[in-house]
Each structure stands twice: as structure tokens, then as C-alpha cells.
């Protein structure tokens, strides 16, 4: 079979998986043309990544929540409230950043466990339990900021989480741009290529289906080129931001957990068929607690990222984050029927939605039109998803 026939076949077979990447690519290309290249400028890409960060971590957590057939509407204002707590702990109590971050993360986990308790113990539907949470956290956020209004955070190390960049390696100034970023880019490519080759070897050994050789090579070259390009662009500006590092770390860890571990298998089993999972010795209750605790943890992280980015806690922080996260997860291919969805997909989904906002902002599109455009993209993504799923059987 010729290369192009192979390519056609592979694309058709994996249209759902590759569709997302293609959509992201197309959206970015369109905005690059429409903004005369401004969209793809190092400064804007860096901005885009930092803007995506706090929604992306929420989308990762939300993916697992939706996979086990629940939903969490409370994450937006919980993130806002926890951000305000962080600000109060630093500004009014005077704790250092290094103490505040872990405290807030633990509070997030605790909040997630409360949600899970309502769902598991009382059997309240997640939609209702977290709608109650939405109201309560919104009220708590207003209370926390009532006396002061916006709380300005002076701590430079805290503010660096959302605005700063990783330091460069000293003594390598002769390399143009940010040397550590370039180095990390190269390391990422090497790891990716070796990992893929290893994986392919293993699969071939067990007689699983793998991509035809030429297509496989094309995939490696294509993804390596994109990673390389992003690293190059970033290195040309200030390097990788701390936000990007945190998001990559979260996505990496969650990707590993969901695809390789017993816990991940149990989560997807509960989503795929809760009764069968329960009768197989997988405790649905335990998994529900774990998934909501993880959601709480990531919500706290999102709150920290956002508060740090604004360098202040505001009375409206977190508004609509939950819907952005849910939209990102759906664009990324999760299914409300449960058991289907990937962390990487949701990251791409978050990038798609953030690119739309960012690109339209650059073009000066009115906010009203922006909402409509994002709504249409969300609907299109889910229609595409349903159509390809039906065809694929």
C-alpha cells in the first residue's frame, strides 16, 4: 500500500483523536493570518499559555469527574475563594508563600472530600451538591473580601507562579535566547521519540496493531517539530513560564495515572460501568472520594495560578471557570455517558478555547461575538465527536 493510502486510512481511523489537534492547528493558523502573525509572536504565545493554565488544570480534574459520570459546578468560586484565602494568609497573617501554597492545596482537597461525602453518603446528585457549593463558595468569597475589597499581594515569589519564567543556566549567554528552555525542548523531544519507539516495539511483540512505518516516522517528525518550534519561540522571549511548567507537570502526572496505573484503570472502570466495577471489587465510593479530592486539589492550584497572575484576590475571581473547564473537557472528547475521555484531550480542549478568546481579543472582536463563537465551536466539537463515534461503532 502506498504512503498516501496509508495516511488516508490512519487519518480516517483516528479521526476523533487527530481531529482535535487538527482543529487546534487550524484555529491557530487562521488567527496567525488574520492578525498578520501577531498571534504567533513569542510574547502572545507566552501569554496564551499563562492564560490557559488555570483553566487547563481545572479541565484535567473535571475530565475525571465527568469520566465517573459526575459534574462539579463549584470549582470556579472555590478557586476564587481559595485564592482569597491565600491572599489573606499572606497579607493579613503574614505567612510566607512556601507555607501558604501547601495550606491552600490541602484546603482544596478537603473541600473536594466534602463534595464527595455529599454525593456518596447522602446520595445527592453531583449537579445539585456542587450547585450548592457554587452558591456557598461564592458567598464565602464575598465574605473573605468584604472588609478589604481587592487584596493586593506584594509577595514577589507568589506572583512569580503566574507571571514569572524559569531562570536560565548561567554561563550560557553565548547561546541566543533562553538556553534552558531550548535544552528542555531537546530533552522532551528525545524522551518522546525514544518512548514512542519503545512503545511500538512492545506492541509489535504482542501482535497489537501499530501505525505503518512511514506514518509512524511522519508522526514522530511532526510532533517533534511542533515541540521544537514552541521551545524555540519561547526561548526567543523569556523562556518557559512557571505556569507552563506546572501545567505540564500536572498533565504529565495525570496522564500517567490515568493510562498506566491501577487507580486509573479503576476510575475508568467505574465510569464505564459502575455496577460491574463494584462487583469486581472496585469500590465506587472510594473512587468517587479520590476523584473529587483530586478535583479539589486542582481547584486550589487553579486558584493559586489565577490569584498569582492577577497579583491580587478579587471579589469576582473564579466566575465561570467551571463552565470553561467543562467546555474544555467536552471539546477534548470526554463523554457524558462516562468512561471515556483523556487528560491530554482536555488540555488540547482548553488550548482550543483559550486560542479562540486570545485570537479574537487580538482582533478586537466584541465580547458578545466571542461568546457566540466559543459556543459554536463547543457545539461543533461535540457533534463531530458524536458523529465519529457512531461511525466508528
Amino acid at each position, binding site marked *: 500500500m502506498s504512503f498516501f493510502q496509508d495516511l488516508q486510512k490512519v487519518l480516517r481511523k483516528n479521526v476523533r483523536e487527530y481531529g482535535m489537534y487538527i482543529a487546534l492547528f487550524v484555529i491557530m493558523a487562521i488567527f496567525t493570518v488574520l492578525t498578520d502573525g501577531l498571534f504567533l509572536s513569542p510574547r502572545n504565545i507566552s501569554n496564551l499559555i499563562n492564560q490557559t493554565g488555570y483553566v487547563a488544570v481545572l479541565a484535567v480534574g473535571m475530565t475525571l469527574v465527568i469520566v465517573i459520570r459526575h459534574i462539579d459546578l463549584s470549582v470556579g468560586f472555590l478557586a476564587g475563594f481559595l485564592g482569597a484565602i491565600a491572599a489573606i494568609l499572606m497579607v493579613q497573617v503574614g505567612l510566607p508563600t512556601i507555607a501558604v501554597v501547601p495550606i491552600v492545596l490541602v484546603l482544596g482537597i478537603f473541600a473536594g472530600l466534602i463534595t464527595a461525602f455529599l454525593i456518596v453518603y447522602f446520595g445527592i446528585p453531583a449537579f445539585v451538591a456542587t450547585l450548592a457549593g457554587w452558591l456557598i463558595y461564592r458567598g464565602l468569597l464575598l465574605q473573605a473580601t468584604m472588609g478589604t475589597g481587592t487584596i493586593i499581594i506584594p509577595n514577589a515569589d507568589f506572583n512569580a507562579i503566574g507571571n514569572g519564567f524559569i531562570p536560565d543556566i548561567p554561563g550560557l549567554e553565548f547561546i541566543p535566547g533562553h538556553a534552558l528552555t531550548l535544552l528542555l525542548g531537546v530533552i522532551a523531544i528525545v524522551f518522546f521519540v525514544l518512548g514512542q519507539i519503545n512503545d511500538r516495539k512492545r506492541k509489535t511483540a504482542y501482535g*497489537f496493531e501499530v501505525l505503518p512505518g512511514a506514518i509512524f516516522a511522519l508522526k514522530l517528525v511532526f510532533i517533534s517539530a511542533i515541540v521544537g518550534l514552541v521551545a524555540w519561540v519561547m526561548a526567543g522571549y523569556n523562556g518557559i513560564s512557571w505556569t507552563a511548567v506546572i501545567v505540564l507537570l500536572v498533565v504529565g502526572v495525570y496522564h500517567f495515572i490515568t493510562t498506566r496505573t491501577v487507580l486509573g484503570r479503576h476510575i475508568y472502570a467505574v465510569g464505564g460501568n459502575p455496577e460491574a*466495577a463494584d462487583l469486581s471489587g472496585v469500590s465506587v465510593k472510594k473512587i468517587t472520594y479520590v476523584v473529587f479530592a483530586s478535583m479539589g486539589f486542582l481547584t486550589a492550584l487553579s486558584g493559586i495560578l489565577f490569584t498569582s497572575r492577577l497579583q491580587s484576590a478579587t471579589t469576582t475571581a473564579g466566575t465561570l471557570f467551571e463552565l470553561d473547564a467543562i467546555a474544555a473537557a467536552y471539546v477534548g472528547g470526554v463523554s457524558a455517558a462516562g468512561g471515556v475521555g483523556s487528560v491530554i484531550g482536555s488540555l488540547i480542549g482548553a488550548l482550543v478555547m483559550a486560542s479562540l478568546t486570545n485570537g479574537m481579543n487580538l482582533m478586537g472582536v466584541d465580547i458578545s461575538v466571542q461568546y457566540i463563537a466559543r459556543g459554536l465551536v463547543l457545539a461543533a466539537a461535540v457533534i463531530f465527536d458524536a458523529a465519529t463515534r457512531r461511525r466508528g*461503532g
Partner: protein
Amino acid sequence: MATPILEMKSITKTFPGVKALDNVSFRVAQGEIHCLVGENGAGKSTLMKVLSGVWPYGSYEGDILFAGEVQKFKGIADSERVGIAIIYQELALFPELTVYENIFLGHEIRKGALVDWNETIKQADKMLKKVKLSVNPAAKIKDLGVGKQQLVEIAKALSKDVKLLILDEPTAALNEDDSENLLQLIRDLRDNGVTCIMISHKLKEVISIADTVTVLRDGQTVVTLDAHKGEVSEPVLIKHMVGREIENIYPKREHKRSEDVVLEVRNWSAHSQQLGRDVLRDVNFTLKKGEIVGFAGLMGSGRTELALSLFGNSIGYQVKGDLYINGQKQQFKQTEDAIKAGLAYVTEDRKAKGLILIQDVKQNITLANLQEIAKRGVVNDQAEAQVANEYRVSLNIKTPTIEQKVGNLSGGNQQKVSLGKWLFVKPNVLILDEPTRGIDVGAKFEIYTLMNGLVEQGMSIIMISSELPEVLGMSDRVYVVASGRITGELPVEEATQEKIMQLATS
């Protein structure tokens, strides 16, 4: 042959990679009961889906002639319009709605824009009389037994003025009495001019009811037999279905009796808060090493509840009583504890409770024992593939690869995956709940052989089954359950179908 009401000519239906129907021709005469038999995956359900418009015109090759006219159904609504109704194995009723609402759902009797409830109830009553079901039309479906629900489905079909009624394994979930009632009803319907097509795995039933039998195998018509010419008998049907003679469908095994009691249950009771009654009362029984103990009884007698409550999954039940495994008293808080103690439970309803249909063969097989193939919580893919392939080979699971989604496999192969999952747990006590329901003769034989192999290796099996020949053919001892109690214990040498039925209805 009398005038055909239905002729399907040279029907070919392909799915990606599979030819489900290959040039099938199928003729049904006006006013007969025509049984369709064949192994799972033979194409029976696909053929009926083509006929009822689930697979629309254009998605298959060939012609459908109904009442002398070529039909081009675009959907179920089209086939219903000409008088074809299909009743699936899984009933399509709404549990929270009443009997009369269900009967007229989708074709309500109207008075202007409103539903004419008085007329609806009157008509529903008439339909219920036709199917000889004496229930209050205002009762909710969820409060009726499966047998009665089945009759409501038929009443619904009759209310649509059905000419050709298709029943897909109508007695699979029914006990002997309900089955006999249903078969009699189908005969009455025939005598009143309704032609019936019935898919069934129960050959005795087929023989007792069919005017004509068509056997499908591997997507092709093998033979059409006329019962009135004495062409239909169990050995003949089995021969055509599997393409080989099965001498004895219950393989023999050496009865190696051991006196070691593996599992003992004393004074076991369960109360359901939801139903407001006891589902199990003072159950006592023992299971010995290397023994197959059959649990016979009617549907709803409490056998599945017994299995679930022993297995630590007694959601909604208050359980009392003592459970001993190898002489050790056990108390399971959750299923995981039961699995650790050496129990495994292959569920009755493999699709709803046994398997994760959207996941692949290997993920399903390893789900209950992931620790075995994981190190520090990380699953070892190679070990997993190895395990899955071992069970694929040893259980003869027919699947292109172990990465195939379980939902795409046939019933028999799904059951084997379910078995593989529980064998991988390496249990001492295996509870099988209706292990061969809805699967074909060939796969049944394989499962029986497997069970014999397992007990020879020292495993003990509790087999819950509603098929009496199976209970008699496979068990060493038989317990009969009725209304949540054990009403009798019989060594297999003394057990007969009559004795069991007597205990089951006591």
C-alpha cells in the same frame, strides 16, 4: 407451503470486517409460528433488525417482500406501519409508567390535542384480556414480574394491530410456568391470524411450538424444516446449528467426592428495605471441595440475592447470619473482601453487571485482579497482554485481538470474557449465575467442559440455573430455592425435573 406473508430474498448485510448475513433467504407463511434458531453470531438478530428497519433500506442488499409488496423501511416506524412488531429480549417498557400508559405509548388515543384516558384504559383492558393478563391497568410496570411485563409488551404490539410479531428469546428470563403460558398465548395468537417469528435457544420450546423452523449458521440459511412433516427434533436441530453431532451436551466427569467443607452458610437472612420484605430467610447450605452445587428455583426466588449478599454486595439489604470459608468465620464489608477470601461471582446479567462494554477484552479480564499484574500501582502492559492472551486461548474467546471492545463480541464470547475475568482472580469458590443464558450450544458445551476441569483441579462451584436439564446434568447436589428459603436438598442421583419443580413451587 401456504401463501407467504414475508419473503426476504438474498439478504446480505456487512459490517466493517464481518459479513453478518450472506445471501440469506427466509420465507414465512401466513398464520404460522416460525422459529429461527442458530448459534450466537449466526445472524438471527441482524436478520430481524433488517426486517424491522433498524438497519434501513440501502444498508443491506436484497429485497424484503411483505404482504406481497416490496418494502423499503427507513426505520422502525415504517415497519410498524405495515404491521410488523418486534419484542426484544431486553424489554422496552417504562418502569415508572402504568400498564395502560405503556401499552399506548407512542400511539396514544387522542381526543383533539389531549389524550383520551378513559378510552385508553378501556382499550388497554381489552388488550390485556387478549393476552390473558389479569392485572390492574393502572399498576406500574416496575411492580410486575418479568413474565407479566413480557405479556404487556405483547399487548402493546397487539394494540398496534400487528400482523407479524417477532419475539427475540421471549422466554429467556421466564420460569417454566410463565414460559408455558407465553407459548400458549403465542399459539392462540397464531390461531387468531397473527403470524409469529420466534428466536429461541431453548430447543424443547422450539419443538413444542414451531410450525416451521429455519436454522441459520455463520450468516447463512442452513435449512428450513417443516414440523408437521416430522422433520424437527432436538438432535436434528443441534446438528444443523453446529454443523456437527453433539453426543452429550453435558460432558461427563469423575465424581471425586471430598468431605472438606469449603463454604458454609448458616441462618442467612436478608431484608430489603426497598421492597419492605425478607428476600432471604434462614438459608443454610454447605459447599464441599471439588463439588458443583446447583441452585434451582424460579425467577425471583432469591438465588441472585443470595449470591450478591454472600459476595459482600448487599446494597439495600440488611443481612444477618454466619458465613464460614474453610471453617473461618467471615464478614465482608465490600466485594473486595469477598474476592480476597477466595470468592468469585460471575453475574447473571453480563451486559449490565458483568462487563464494561466500552473497554477491551484485556481490560475486562484483568479488572478484578489488577494488583497481580501491577507493581507499586503501575500496570505492567506486557504482563496484562500475556494474561489476556492466555485466557483468550484457554477459553477459546473468538476475538480478532485482545484489544477488541467487549461490546462488539457475541454473547457467548462475552460470557467467556466474564469467566476469564473471574478465573484470573484464582478463586476457591466460583459462583456462576445463569452461566449459559442466551448463549449457543457450542459455547455452552465449552463452558460445561471448563467447569468440569475447574472442579477436577479442586475448585468448588455454585451454579445458579433456571434450566433444569443443566442443573441435573452438571450438579453433584441440588438445592432448591423458593421465596427466599431453601426448600429442599437433593443428591443428583435422586433429583428429577418433577421433584425440583415440586420443591420450587412449594
